[in-house]
C-alpha cells in the first residue's frame, strides 16, 4: 500500500503556482513568435517579454534594464561569476567566495582557476554562518575582482550576513554577487549587492528560467560569444512562455511571501524541535534563528542516507539529502563538510505553499519509526 504523497523538496523545485500555469498556457498561444522581429505576432511577443521583465524588476525593486532572463539559475550563476571576473580583470584575478556556495558557483570558480585565476574560499561556523573576519581579510587582499556570497544556504537554510559582507566588500572596492535562489519570492532581499541571481522553479515558477540582475555601474562583461538578446548578458532566445509564467508567479509568490513565511517558519520550528526530541541520535543542523522560513536539515547517526530517502519515498515522502551515498560523486555535501556536521543519514525537508500542518504531522509521526527500522536492520540500535 502506498501512502498519499507528501512533497517536501521545494528547495529543489517548488510545485508550480497556479498563476504560473495560467500565464504559461496563455503565453504559449500568444508568445511563440520571435520577439526580435518586426511583424505583429513578434511585437506581441516583445510586449509580453517587456511586461514580464518590468514585473520581475518591480518585484525585486530593480530597474528593468538591469534584469535578464537566463535558461536556469545555474546559467545565471555561471554568468554572474564569470562575467563579474571578466569585467574586473584589470583589478585582479581573484574570486572570493563562501565555502557553502551552490555547486554552480563553485564550478564557475573551478573554470576560473583552471584558466589561471585564483579562488579563495571563506569558511563558515558550525551553524553555517559566514566567518566575517575571514571574509574581511579575503576581500581586502590585493587583486580581488569579485566576491560571491549565497544569500541563504540551499542545504541548511542558514541566512548569510549579506549586508555586513557587502559593507566589507564595498570598503575594499570589490563588487558582491549574491546567489538569492532560496530567498527570491520568499524573503526580502538584502541590500548591498552588485549582481544577483535567482531561479524560477524555487518560487513556484517553471523550471528552466533564471534571473540575472546586474546593477547599473557594475563592471560586468558577458563571458559568452556575442549575442544581443537580454542586453547581451545571456545568449540565445528566451523561453518566453516560461519567462512570462516565471514573472507572473514571482509577483504572486512575493505578494504572499510574508504570510507564507509566518505560516511555514513555525512548522519548521516544530520539525526542528520534534525531530531532535523524538529521533534518538540526530543532529539538526543550520542556524535555528537566522534561517529560511521553509527549510530544515538533519542527520541521523548510523543511518545510510540513500536507504533513508528510499524508505521515506516508500511512505510517500519526497525529500532530498546531502549524504555522500545520494550524490553522483559519492562525496558528502560540501556544505555539511564546511560546517563540520554529521553528513550521513542526512535529510533536507523544504516546505511550500501547498504544505499543510497535517503533512508535517504525518512526516513527524512516521519518521521516528522509519529511522528505528533502518537502525534495527543495520544492527546499530544500541551503539
Amino acid at each position: 500500500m502506498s501512502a498519499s504523497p507528501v512533497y517536501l523538496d521545494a528547495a529543489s523545485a517548488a510545485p508550480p503556482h497556479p498563476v504560473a500555469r495560467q500565464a504559461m498556457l496563455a503565453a504559449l498561444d500568444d508568445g511563440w513568435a520571435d520577439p526580435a522581429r518586426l511583424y505583429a505576432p513578434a511585437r506581441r511577443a516583445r510586449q509580453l517579454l517587456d511586461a514580464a521583465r518590468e514585473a520581475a524588476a518591480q518585484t525585486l525593486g530593480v530597474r528593468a534594464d538591469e534584469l535578464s532572463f537566463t535558461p536556469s539559475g545555474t546559467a545565471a550563476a555561471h554568468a554572474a561569476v564569470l562575467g563579474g571576473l571578466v569585467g574586473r580583470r584589470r583589478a585582479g584575478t581573484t574570486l572570493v567566495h563562501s565555502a557553502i556556495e551552490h555547486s554552480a558557483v563553485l564550478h564557475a570558480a573551478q573554470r576560473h582557476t583552471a584558466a589561471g585565476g585564483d579562488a579563495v574560499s571563506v569558511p563558515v561556523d558550525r551553524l553555517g554562518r559566514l566567518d566575517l573576519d575571514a571574509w574581511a581579510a579575503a576581500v581586502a587582499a590585493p587583486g580581488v575582482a569579485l566576491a560571491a556570497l549565497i544569500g541563504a544556504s540551499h542545504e541548511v537554510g542558514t541566512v548569510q550576513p549579506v549586508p555586513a559582507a557587502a559593507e566589507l566588500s564595498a570598503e575594499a572596492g570589490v563588487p558582491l554577487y549574491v546567489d538569492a535562489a532560496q530567498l527570491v519570492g520568499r524573503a526580502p532581499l538584502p541590500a548591498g549587492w552588485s549582481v544577483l541571481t535567482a531561479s524560477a522553479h524555487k518560487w513556484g515558477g517553471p523550471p528552466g528560467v533564471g534571473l540575472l540582475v546586474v546593477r547599473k555601474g557594475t563592471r560586468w562583461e558577458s563571458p559568452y560569444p556575442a549575442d544581443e538578446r537580454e542586453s547581451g548578458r545571456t545568449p540565445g532566445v528566451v523561453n518566453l512562455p516560461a519567462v512570462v509564467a516565471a514573472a507572473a508567479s514571482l509577483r504572486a509568490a512575493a505578494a504572499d511571501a510574508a504570510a507564507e513565511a509566518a505560516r511555514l517558519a513555525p512548522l519548521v520550528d516544530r520539525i526542528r524541535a520534534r525531530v531532535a526530541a523524538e529521533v534518538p541520535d540526530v543532529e539538526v543542523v543550520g542556524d535555528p534563528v537566522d534561517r529560511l522560513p521553509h527549510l530544515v536539515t538533519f542527520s541521523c547517526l548510523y543511518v545510510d542516507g540513500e536507504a533513508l530517502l528510499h524508505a521515506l519515498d516508500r511512505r510517500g515522502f519526497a525529500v532530498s539529502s546531502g549524504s555522500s551515498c545520494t550524490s553522483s560523486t559519492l562525496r558528502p555535501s560540501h556544505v555539511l563538510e564546511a560546517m563540520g556536521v554529521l553528513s550521513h543519514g542526512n535529510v533536507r525537508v523544504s516546505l511550500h505553499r501547498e504544505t499543510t500542518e497535517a503533512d508535517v504531522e504525518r512526516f513527524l509521526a512516521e519518521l521516528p519509526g522509519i529511522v528505528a527500522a533502518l537502525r534495527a536492520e543495520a544492527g546499530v540500535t544500541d551503539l
Partner: protein
Amino acid sequence: MSEPDETLDCRGQRCPLPVINLARRVPGLPAGAVVRVLADDPAAAVDIPAWCRMRGHEFLAAHPDAGPAYDVRV
C-alpha cells in the same frame, strides 16, 4: 604520528560503516585508549569528528595522507 593503541581498518567501506565499526569497537577498549581509524570514504573526514562530538570522545587528529587515518581518544 605517534602509535595508537588500536588500529581499525575501514578502507573500502562506505559511510556510515566506518563510524559504525568505530562505535562497535569502542566499548571493548579501556578509557583513554587511542584508536586509529583508516577510512578512505571522504565522508569519514566529517563524520568521525562529528561522532566524537555526539558521543563525548576526543577527536585527536586527521592524517589525510596516511590511510587517510583518524585518531580518536575514547
